[in-house]
Every structure is written in structure tokens, then in C-alpha cells.
């Protein structure tokens, strides 16, 4: 069997384990670490190490190994954790991510980064040892992770399963209170059996092993729980092949020998070596450092373990506990299904059109059959779409780390609140929302939330709060980044805009001022920090979001904070649309932007300077955009009174769109126009109508921008509205046009 088949499984699982490790590290209370959490972190590291060894990823294996050593000591209470430890652990986790990525791309991990992180971890091990055990001075050039620890402390595992830790007992393995477990391995080939026994030796003390290929019984003295042992062994064999039960039988004769060896080591080096047995041996085998006398004194039992495991072909990749009810499916397969469903829907709407045109006798049956098909197609489509949906948690879960790192770098205290973890979003959207959202979070931390002293001075709590939320609203998902910081600085934005040469005036509304920060190259950060302020920010965010068919809104109150709201369509694939006709052409308006439609009366129309027209709907004056003018459609209705006006909502602003006719509401399958062509101004994407023709889906925000850009002369050479012009009642629509 080719082991490389399992690479992907390993990579996926290792990545999940790393993510889990990070989550746990962030959740860990450094002052009073929870034993279960520490164990879980250790297990994650250990599982990755085991997998890496199986696949021969030595750098990954060795790095995890050093991390594991420290974690092991932490969970045994030998190492008092501090914030620095967590920082280093997180740094290591990032490095492991990088290494994993390198292996995944069939490259070698960066050797410098590897050397650095190993040095960092060793340093950490040494420092902790010195702090924890000042009575056992250690030469500073000794390798850290295997650094000596006084035997008394070492054999007092805190947070393990032991009820009564033995104190100052130099022979921990002979102590009766260490549980003996009988591990029965069934149908395991010789080589793998050796490997597994060596692995067990890393977890505890192998007292005896006997048996053959069919059944092999190994007695282990260990504080590791049965479940953990099973998890480790499952890297190599199936769970059904393992049976773990408490062993009560008296230890066989050879125990003495083993223990004597260990005790010998302890005596020589004045250290408890068994705890780190596997670790120290592995380190010496990497050749990364000189072998110290202490290291050499460690039992050699585990040395072959690392050496052999690397060359061991191994039977399986990982078989970690399976997540209930989830499968991994390639996105391309799902995409194929989605495309097929899209085609199905198009066919169905084609049939529907045909059916309504056929003659009465057959029609009734046909129509009812088609309506049934329609229901089925809808259901199928919803079911298929849900396959692509992922919870927002996928995005939110990466922020605790980011915020922790940033806050400490910026010297701020920030609390993260996140809401709506379960809100689901299309996978393609969720992956592309991460970068913009990260940018917004960085901005909030850097520019929004003030330093603790500033906050105190303005009577706020020292802790800033950053709220991330996601919720569904109609056909959209709304994602908000909200901080309780200082808010946007209107005066500074205006000053900056002026110095950037943008046309601004003091009379601009707040909303218009806020929009300025979306201009390219705009940053009011007085100093460029490594967090933000390079001026390649908000315009990129805006562009990215627009590329996803969404838009960004900003709200800010001075002294109280800023809220950035991203509004995105739920999925890129299907849209509720309103088909409209202009001249001979048919366009689709997303239903989510349609507010209302009406037939304008002459007395509702007002013309303004520059031939701009306004439509008075109830008490509101809306600018009127004629689609046939913006898109130069021949043969369209030019008199608003003869056409239909659709009031649409673009970027929070309403306006009236003049069209010839409303055709009807229908569900459309969104097709990418940019795949083979380019972005078309005023158009977001395309769809295929029931008759097989392509219809363009309008982007109402962009349409409004386009209408504003067109010279009024060009727009309206022919029409001169005769209505009365209310003097001074109406301000020009846009004070600025950038």
C-alpha cells in the first residue's frame, strides 16, 4: 500500500489538531491551568508527532516533539506556565502550520525557522527548569527539553489520573499507585507491534510484552488514560484491534530489570529521566545539539523508536475519532452537483414556459406535473446548497488569537465578543471574507480602541470590547465588526482627504465623510505601524466585498465607537430576482434591492439643473435613473409616465430606476461573467433565462455611480421635462463627485 495516499488525511487532521491546540491554548487560564485542557493540548501535539513520524516528516516530528516535552512537563505540574510560555507555544503552533504547509506542497520546511523554534523551546525548557528547580543547577548549554528536573517533583504528577502522588519517590514506576494497564493488540504484524510497544514506552513504562501476531499482550505502567493510549495507537492500527483494560496481575519478573535501568539513570544524573525518556532520546537523535551527560544518561529505550518509526511504512494514516455525521467531499464534486441543479432549474423554468403556452386539454396535467417538478427542484437545490454552507465559526475562531497578539503588541486591553457562530455562509464566501474581516478587526484594534490610559481618562472601562457578529437578514448575511473605541475622527479624515487632493467640503454629511476612508491610499494613522496605516486598507476591503456581490456600511459615533457592517448575499449561486424589460432587453434585479415599484404620474416628476430628474415618492425625493440611458438601450420608453419605476436600495441610498416593464419574479442561477469576460459596469453577474438566453443581473449601487458619471448632456439630449421646478427646495443630489 502506498503510504502517500494517506498524506492528505494526515494533513487535514494535523491542521484540525493545530487549530484545536490554538483554541485550547487561548482558552487556558495560565494562573490555574485546567488539567483536562493541558492534557488535551498535549494529546494534540502528541498525535501530530506520531503522524509526522509515521510519514517521515522529521522536522515536523522533531518540532512537535520539543513542544510536547514542555507540554508534558506542564501537565505534570513540573513547569509553571506563564504568558510567555503560551506566547511561545502559539509561535510554535504557527511554525508547525508553516511546516505542515511546506510538507503539503512537497517542499522542505524552512531550516532556519526550524532551528529558531527549537532553540526557543529549549531555552524555554531551561528557563523553566531553573525557575522551578533552583536547587538543581543545570549547565546552560544542556539541551532544554530534557533538562533535568528534581526527581521528587517529577514523580508528582499534578493533573494526572493519580489520586495520591508519591512524594520524593525515586522509583516512580515501581510504585503501586501507578495504574497498570493491559493493552491487547490483535492481528498486528511484527514490525508494527514493535513500533506500538515503543510508542507505549513513550507513554509509560512497558512492564512486559508477550504474544504473537494474533494476540499480543502488553502490560504498561502509565498515568495516561486508556482513551489516550488508544488515540495514539490508532495512528497505526484500527481501534478494533486494541483492547485496553486494567491489569491487576503481578508484574512479571523482568520488571525489576527495567526499573533498575531506570533507577540507574536517575541515580547517575540526579534526574528523573523516565518522564522524558522518549523525548531526550529523540533529541539526541536529531543531532541538533551536543549530547550532554544528562541526555546520555536517559534510557535509550526510545531511541530506536524515533529512528525506526521514520522508516516504518506504517499501515494507516490517522484514524482519529471520527466526527459524527460529517464527511469530507471535494469542493469540485459539490460544484458539479450545484451546476447540475442549476441546469435542472433552468430546464424546469423552460418547461414551465412551454406548458403555459400549450392548449387547454393537456395543459392541466402538464402544469400540475411541472409545479411538482418545481417543488422537487427547489428542495433538491436547497439540500445541495446546504452542503456548501459552513458556519461562521470557521471565520470567527481565528480571531481570538489575532486579537490577543495584536492587543499585546499595541499595549491595549481588548475583550472579544462574538455572536452568531452558527450563522451559515457559502463556503466560497466564507473563505473570501476572512481577509477583509481580518483587516477590519486590525483597524478597530489599531485605530478604534484606545489605550487603557486614554480609556480611563474618558471614563470608559480599561478593557475595550470588540464585537463580531453574523446574522441572516432577508436574503443577505450581515457581518458586523463593532468596537467601543474613539470613533472616526471627522476633522482628521477631512484634512487627510484634502491633502490627498480629494474634493471635500465641511458641509458634507457624516456618511459622506466616512465613505472617504474607502478611497485608495487613504489612512489617517499618524504613524505607519506594522498593524495598519499603510493606506492599502479600506479600499481593498471595499473592493473585495463588492467582488463578492456585497457592500460595506460604516457607522461611527465620536467617543463611542465604530461599527463596520458587511452585507453579503447568502450564496453566490442562486438569487431571487425580478425580471425587467427595457426596449428589447431583459435584465434581472436582485429582489433584495427592490423596495417597491410604481407607475409615476406627471406631478411626481421634477427636473433639476443639469437635466437631473427627481421623483417624489410620498415625502421623499428620489433621483431618477433611466436604465435605457445608462445602458444606451435602443427603442426603450423615454417618458417616465409611460414606464415603470422601481425604487431600489443601493448602498443604503434609495433611488428610482426607470424601466419599461416588470416581467416577474423568478429564481435565477447566478453565472459568473468575469470567468470568460470582464467586469461590466452596472452589472454584477449574469444568468440564463428559460429560453436559453443570457440575461445580465444589475448591480444597483454601481448603476447609480454610472449614472452620476455620465455627462448630463449625453444622458438627456432628447427629453426636457416640462414640470414646474421647485426653486431652492432641493439640494443638488451629490455635493461631491469624486
Amino acid at each position, binding site marked *: 500500500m502506498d503510504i502517500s495516499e494517506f498524506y492528505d488525511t494526515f494533513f487535514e487532521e494535523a491542521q484540525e489538531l493545530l487549530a484545536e491546540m490554538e483554541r485550547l491554548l487561548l482558552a487556558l487560564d495560565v494562573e490555574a491551568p485546567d488539567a483536562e485542557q493541558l492534557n488535551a493540548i498535549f494529546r494534540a501535539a502528541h498525535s501530530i508527532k506520531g503522524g509526522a513520524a509515521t510519514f517521515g516528516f522529521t522536522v515536523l516530528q522533531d518540532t512537535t516533539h520539543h513542544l510536547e516535552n514542555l507540554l508534558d512537563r506542564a501537565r505534570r505540574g513540573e513547569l509553571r506556565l506563564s504568558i510567555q510560555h503560551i506566547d511561545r507555544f502559539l509561535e510554535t503552533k504557527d511554525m508547525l502550520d508553516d511546516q505542515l504547509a511546506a510538507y503539503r506542497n512537497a517542499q522542505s520546511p524552512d531550516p532556519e525557522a526550524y532551528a529558531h523554534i527549537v532553540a526557543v523551546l529549549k531555552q524555554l525548557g531551561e528557563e523553566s527548569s531553573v525557575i522551578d528547580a533552583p536547587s538543581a543547577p543545570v549547565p546552560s548549554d544542556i539541551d532544554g527539553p530534557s533538562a533535568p528536573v528534581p526527581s521528587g517533583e517529577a514523580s508528582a504528577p499534578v493533573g494526572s489520573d493519580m489520586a495520591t502522588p508519591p512524594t520524593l519517590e525515586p522509583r516512580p514506576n515501581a510504585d503501586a499507585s501507578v495504574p497498570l494497564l493491559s493493552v491487547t493488540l490483535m492481528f498486528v504484524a511484527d514490525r508494527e507491534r514493535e513500533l506500538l510497544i515503543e510508542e507505549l514506552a513513550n507513554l509509560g513504562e512497558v512492564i512486559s510484552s508477550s504474544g504473537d501476531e494474533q494476540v499480543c499482550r502488553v502490560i504498561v505502567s502509565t498515568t495516561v488514560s486508556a482513551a489516550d493510549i488508544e488515540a495514539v495507537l490508532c495512528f497505526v492500527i484500527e481501534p478494533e484491534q486494541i483492547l485496553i483494560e486494567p491489569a491487576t496481575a503481578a508484574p512479571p519478573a523482568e520488571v525489576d530489570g527495567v526499573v533498575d535501568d531506570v533507577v540507574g539513570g536517575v541515580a547517575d544524573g540526579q534526574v528523573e529521566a523516565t518522564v522524558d525518556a522518549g523525548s531526550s532520546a529523540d533529541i539526541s537523535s536529531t543531532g541538533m545539539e551536543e549530547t550532554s551527560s544528562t541526555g546520555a544518561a536517559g534510557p535509550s529505550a526510545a531511541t530506536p523508536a524515533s529512528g525506526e518509526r521514520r522508516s516504518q511504512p506504517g499501515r494507516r494514516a490517522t484514524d482519529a475519532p471520527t466526527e459524527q455525521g460529517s464527511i469530507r467531499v471535494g469542493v469540485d464534486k459539490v460544484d458539479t452537483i450545484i451546476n447540475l441543479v442549476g441546469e435542472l432549474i433552468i430546464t424546469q423554468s423552460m418547461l414551465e414556459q412551454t406548458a403555459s403556452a400549450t392548449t387547454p386539454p393537456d395543459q392541466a396535467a402538464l402544469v400540475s406535473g411541472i409545479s411538482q417538478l418545481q417543488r422537487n427542484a427547489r428542495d433538491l437545490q436547497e439540500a445541495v446548497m446546504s452542503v456548501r454552507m459552513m458556519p461562521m465559526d470557521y471565520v470567527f475562531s481565528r480571531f481570538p488569537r489575532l486579537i490577543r497578539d495584536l492587543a499585546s503588541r499595541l499595549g491595549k486591553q481588548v475583550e472579544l465578543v462574538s455572536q452568531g457562530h452558527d450563522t451559515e455562509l457559502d463556503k466560497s464566501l466564507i473563505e473570501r471574507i476572512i481577509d477583509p474581516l481580518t483587516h477590519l478587526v486590525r483597524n478597530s484594534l489599531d485605530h478604534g480602541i484606545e489605550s487603557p490610559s486614554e480609556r480611563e481618562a474618558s471614563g470608559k472601562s480599561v478593557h475595550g470590547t470588540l464585537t463580531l457578529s453574523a446574522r441572516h437578514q432577508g436574503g443577505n448575511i450581515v457581518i458586523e465588526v463593532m468596537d467601543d473605541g474613539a470613533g472616526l475622527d471627522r476633522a482628521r479624515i477631512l484634512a487627510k482627504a484634502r491633502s490627498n487632493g480629494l474634493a471635500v467640503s465641511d458641509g458634507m454629511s457624516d456618511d459622506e465623510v466616512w465613505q472617504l476612508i474607502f478611497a485608495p491610499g487613504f489612512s489617517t494613522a499618524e504613524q505607519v505601524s506594522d498593524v495598519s496605516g499603510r493606506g492599502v486598507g479600506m479600499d481593498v476591503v471595499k473592493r473585495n466585498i463588492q467582488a463578492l456581490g456585497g457592500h460595506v456600511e460604516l457607522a461611527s459615533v465620536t467617543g463611542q465607537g465604530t461599527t463596520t457592517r458587511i452585507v453579503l448575499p447568502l450564496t453566490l449561486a442562486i438569487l431571487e430576482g425580478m425580471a425587467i424589460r427595457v426596449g428589447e432587453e431583459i435584465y434581472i434585479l436582485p429582489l433584495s434591492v427592490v423596495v417597491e415599484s410604481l407607475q409615476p404620474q406627471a406631478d411626481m416628476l421634477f427636473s433639476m439643473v443639469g437635466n437631473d430628474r427627481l421623483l417624489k415618492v410620498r415625502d421623499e425625493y428620489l433621483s431618477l435613473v433611466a436604465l435605457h440611458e445608462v445602458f*444606451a438601450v435602443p427603442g426603450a420608453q423615454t417618458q417616465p409616465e409611460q414606464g415603470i419605476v422601481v425604487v431600489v436600495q443601493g448602498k443604503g441610498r434609495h433611488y428610482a430606476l426607470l424601466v419599461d416593464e416588470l416581467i416577474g419574479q423568478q429564481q435565477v442561477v447566478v*453565472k459568473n461573467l468575469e*470567468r470568460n469576460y470582464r467586469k461590466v459596469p452596472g452589472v454584477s453577474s449574469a444568468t440564463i433565462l428559460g429560453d*436559453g*438566453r443570457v440575461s445580465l443581473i444589475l448591480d444597483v449601487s454601481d448603476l447609480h455611480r454610472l449614472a452620476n458619471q455620465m455627462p448630463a448632456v449625453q444622458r438627456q439630449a432628447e427629453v426636457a421635462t416640462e414640470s414646474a421646478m421647485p426653486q431652492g427646495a432641493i439640494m443638488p443630489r451629490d455635493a461631491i463627485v469624486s
Partner: protein
Amino acid sequence: MSHTQVAAAQTSNVGLAQDHASKVNDGGEYLVFSLGEEHYAVDILKVQEIRGYENVTRIANAPAFIKGVTNLRGVIVPIVDLRLKFQLGQAEYTAQTVVIVINIGERVVGIVVDGVSDVISLAADQVLPPPEFGARMNSDFLAGLATVNDHMLLIMDIEHMMTSDEMALMEPAAQPA
């Protein structure tokens, strides 16, 4: 290399589609089509299919030679009329109007031509470098010239042409502010 040599070495016949499979050599096979009175050729490996001109949806504010987009089995494909682009022949659309569907990397583009006549094989030494100065067509878009049955055949570098800013089919390389 002289023109007479090329003429002597010619292997195929514009107007006859039967013998194209008889000779395959380093130069490769080309699809020959006409624009007005001129004969052009594109690398056959870039051609996905040939179809009629129908159901093209106009794109507002696009250059005149971009006729719009059409539905090619669920994929939206832009249609370019090379006759309009290079002012060759009459841009009429009838049931006989032909669209050559071309693959450019991952992209698919349809080009409208006056007619498709043949598939020919050309040896590498039959292809002459294009002239430095082109008439209507930027000589950058020509991969070479060949003489076939006393006709001059202009071999298009269709990939270069379709990806150029001049064709306005793709986002310009530099992002506009």
C-alpha cells in the same frame, strides 16, 4: 527562405477539407477562416468548437466589436466580431454566420468570422515571420504568414490577441483606482 520554396512545399488546399489528416508535422494544424477577402488561420488546438451565431445578449457600453455574451451549455461566453474589430467585410448576421469558440488558457471566447474553410497542416518552415508593419491588424497579433494555393494566409496569435488590452475582453492588467 524564399516565397518560392514555401509555395513548392505547400501541402494543402484552401477549400478542400479532406486531406488535412494526411500530413501532420512540427508546424501543426490550423483552422482556416475568412474575414472579408482575406484568409486567416488559428492553431487548431486552441479551437474548442464551431457553432452558429444566435442568442447573443448585448453588453451595455462595451466596444462595438464585442457583440455580447451567449450561453454555451451553462457557461457565459463573450462573442467578438473580428470583422468589426478589423473592419474587414460586412458584419451581417445570418443563419450562416459562424462563431469559432476558442480556448485561451482557462477562458473561452467566441469569435465571429465570415466563414470557416479548411483545416490544414503547415510545416514549421512553411511559416514566415510576420511583416513588421501591419495594415489594419497590429502585427503583434500575427504569428506568421504562409502561402497556400497562391493565397496568403495570415496566422493569428489568437491567444496574444484575445488577452491584449486592445480587445477589452479581460480586466486591464493594472487595476484602475
